[in-house]
């Protein structure tokens, strides 16, 4: 019963198969969002710790350089070996979350550090506590830098989800490998183009969201 509900690509053409693309695109987005969310939470925790304690940052940087260097397929299987569950989505989500974390944590710390001392001094003089200053002054001013990191992480994550197509998972990545096995170019192209389109759509949404939460930047630009 459960298997029957999974739509299957039929024939060597595009028409009639839009439902299949949408089905796998939804799974793709779910996997990517789970990884991004997990990565963001981790990056925020490690980023704030690194901002406060220099020694933590040195360790975090070394760790993130190493993770970033690891090929996704290798990382995926190693996490599968550790968790012992190769056939569910957890290893993929954890691996992609690690990439997100390593990209984002650097941008968070550099963004916070780039807040001018005059601004932090002024907010202290106005009576902000350390936490109030962080939440209401420093983090908002670091939003553009954090958003830049998030955009890179998002595009990479959407593209990397497909790697799990090799083990028959990975959202749109499944269309790539199934198209390869059935020698169906339409299915392969659909997988590639849908992935690129998803990355583009989500990237535009992030740009719009960043503009919405940083209204002071637009005013600054208009007044020169």
């Amino acid at each position, binding site marked *: 019963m459960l298997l029957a509900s999974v739509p299957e690509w039929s024939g060597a053409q595009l028409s009639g198969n839009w439902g299949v693309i949408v089905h796998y695109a939804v799974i793709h987005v779910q996997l990517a969002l789970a990884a991004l969310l997990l990565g963001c939470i981790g990056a925020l925790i490690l980023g704030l710790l690194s901002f406060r304690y220099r020694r933590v940052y040195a360790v975090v940087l070394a760790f993130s*350089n190493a993770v970033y260097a690891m090929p996704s397929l290798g990382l995926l299987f190693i996490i599968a070996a550790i968790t012992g569950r190769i056939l569910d989505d957890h290893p993929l989500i954890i691996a992609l979350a690690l990439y997100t974390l390593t990209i984002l944590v650097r941008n968070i710390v550099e963004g916070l550090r780039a807040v001018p001392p005059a601004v932090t001094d002024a907010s202290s003089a106005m009576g902000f506590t350390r936490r109030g200053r962080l939440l209401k002054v420093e983090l908002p001013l670091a939003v553009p830098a954090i958003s*830049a990191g998030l955009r890179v992480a998002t595009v990479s994550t959407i593209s990397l989800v497909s790697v799990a197509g*090799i083990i028959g998972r990975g959202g749109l990545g499944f269309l790539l490998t199934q198209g390869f096995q059935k020698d169906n170019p339409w299915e392969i192209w659909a997988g*590639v183009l849908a992935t690129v389109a998803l990355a583009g759509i989500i990237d535009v949404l992030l740009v719009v969201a960043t503009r919405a939460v940083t209204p002071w930047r637009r005013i600054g630009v208009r007044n020169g």
Partner: protein
Amino acid sequence: MGSAISWLTTSDNWGGSSGIWQRLLEHLRYSAIALVIAAFIAVPVGLLIGHTGKGSGFVIGTTGAVRAIPTLGLLILLNKLQPLALWPVEAALVVLAVPPILANTAAGVAAVDAGARDAAVGIGMNGRQTLWRVEVPLALPLILSGIRSASLQVIATATVAAYTGLGGLGRLVLDGYDTQNLGKAYGGSVLVVVLALLIEGLYALAQRVLARSREGGGLDHLPLAPVIEAPAIS
């Protein structure tokens, strides 16, 4: 993880025409060919863009767009043109390796201090001399950053290349997975990751030596991380 260790410590798995050493050599060969081709394309074009200041918008745009392409899909599509040939894999690797080298080279040359450039012109250097004697040496750390970033991407992607039937370390992972020999799949993954970390470490060392060998060590402030972290699509 225990099965991976016992697979890796079995000496029979290292030799032979489908052993670890053979797969490692294949992996390095695929990667080296792609990197050399990519560098021959990307460095001259990057120097030209950085020197003239034209086309940098194009570079930033394509760098981001390429990042969005699923590697596996690109490999499968190119492989369809001539299954099991080496060139589709090399072409896919070159496509991935060109943007980081190009972007870093262009950014490195463009970031050369205007004063240094003026001084070069002031002592009578022409455009070509300025490029080779001033801009290229000053941009070298960033060019190396680009090659480092491209190397990592190529080594990672050469792993996926096994899916379309070629060799390399990815072969161990996929064959292990397909035959339910998880020790082999996990052991192969460990090798893939260790190789990437070794290469990353070598580059880090090379960049440190390069920075130190320069007079006064004034280049310490230059970012060792690649500048292609700049976002692009849109």
